[in-house]
């Protein structure tokens, strides 16, 4: 069994070492973490409990040994939205992401740009595979407004199981929080992660 010795280390170093070991372990795998800090005893217990990992602690002469089993349920799969996805299996989803950075498609006449964008969003619904996720940032967040010409289509796409992620900074910047009732607000880290993990990004 793998052992992570964190004796002599101050918080948060023992948490970092434990998280690393968790990431490197298979589900159900067991390993040990050793600490000589009472603060770490408390903080690590709380950390493991909140992340739903099974563990036990034994103490001997001021040294605590955690025996940790990596959780068998991936916490991400416990999110309600993921369950919803599983209920609509007849829509096949690809591994690509659509990123809207504007409410117009392409550059040129604004009227034409809006019309093209409307057609593009409509077309998403009819593609062989739906996007894995759709992100909206900068002017793109305007597409989510209740009175946007595509809000109905976006709502349908969301109901088909695609998560719509709106850049929270942008929604706040344009003061649109009250006008958008679809999708979820995401931070830039989340948006960057979504784009980085996509096989393809489509930017209309």
């Amino acid at each position, binding site marked *: 069994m793998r052992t992570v010795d964190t004796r002599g280390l*101050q*918080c*948060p*170093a023992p*948490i*970092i*070492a*434990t*998280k*690393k070991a968790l990431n490197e372990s298979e589900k159900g795998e067991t390993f040990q973490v050793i600490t000589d800090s009472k*603060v770490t005893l*408390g*903080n690590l217990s*709380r*950390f493991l409990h*909140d*992340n739903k990992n099974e563990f036990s602690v034994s103490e001997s002469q001021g040294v605590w040994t955690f025996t940790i089993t990596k959780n068998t349920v991936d*916490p991400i799969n*416990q*999110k*309600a*939205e993921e369950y919803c996805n599983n209920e609509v299996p007849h829509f096949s989803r690809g591994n690509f992401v659509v990123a809207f950075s504007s409410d117009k498609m392409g550059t040129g006449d604004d009227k034409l740009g809006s019309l093209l964008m409307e057609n593009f969003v409509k077309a998403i619904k009819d593609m062989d595979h739906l996007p894995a996720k759709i992100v909206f940032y900068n002017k793109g967040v305007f597409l989510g407004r209740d009175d946007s010409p595509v809000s109905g289509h976006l709502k349908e796409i969301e109901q088909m199981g695609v998560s719509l992620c709106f850049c*929270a*900074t942008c929604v*706040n910047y344009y*003061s649109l*929080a009250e006008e958008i009732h679809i999708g*979820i*607000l*995401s*931070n830039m*880290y*989340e948006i960057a992660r979504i784009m980085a993990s996509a096989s393809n990004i489509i930017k209309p």
Partner: protein
Amino acid sequence: MKVDLLQTVESGGCSAKIPPKQLEELLKQLPLPADPNILVDIDTHDDAGVYRVNDDLALVFTTDFFPPVCSDPYEFGQIAAANSVSDIYAMGGTPVIALNIMMFPASRLPAEAYRDILLGGADIAAKAGLRIIGGHSIDDFPPKYGLAVVGYVHPKKIITNAGARAGDVLILTKPIGTGVILAGQRLGMASDNDVAEAKDLMKTLNDSGASVMKKHMIKGATDITGFGLAGHTLKMAKASSVKITLNMSRVPLIGKTYSLADQGCIPGAAFRNLDFADNDTVCDEGLDYNLKMTAFDAQTSGGLLISVPEKKEKEVLEDLRRTGMQSSVVIGTVSEFDGKHLCLSQ
């Protein structure tokens, strides 16, 4: 010779507070002075005490000091001073006079470091229009610095953490994550850019936020420091007898705070703050663990959390952004108390 103050400490800034749970129990055992001129005291866990002098003038009085949060003595002085004045601004006051409070290991660090810390403090005091008129030093290791500050406020225009009302929205004026970034710096995990961003934010005075609050006659606000965003929000909700819901995905974070927390870089102070808030807090099931712990991250010289009537939201946000607090955003809402004071949602 260049001094690295970070070599002297294990936990710096507002992370160095006494565990809040323990502090609350201890403070309960102290007698509270009875005087009708005391307008605000520690009873509501507010940022500073307020004493009425006459019908037109009250004094806001506060102090804060802590061990180094950065290597450079001058920068440490700036950050500590900005943090000390912040409580005055949070209560709608104008800082007037201050005393230096300094603990310094004279035999272990060069005298230049002592001077530079005080020069940094003086720089921020000048920016705040604050006159430092004295102080006190003792020999101690590691060094600690801060100010005791007196400000003016009109007795009828005091802004307190008891002034949040159901229906208000909450605006935060600075991104959070200083505790995570500084811990990451100590472990060599944080980038120089992120550390620089955190330091700039910590040196930023909350003076423009205070002016905007005064202009819009805001009643409820607090500043975000050692108890973290969630801890100070909870204190506000308790003092105001309301429930506050924070939408954590709307909270702006400094640089790679999220990614650091995701790697386990969660300072011990965050766990202490979580422990304090646990009984009064409910977390939505979908709440991301790293965002939750970031909510409890101890902030040094954080922003203002302002409770704003919904109809004033746009104007207040515009004024905040126009006066230099560009990151200001709505991060939550105030509702009637329903058994829990704080709700953390995704």
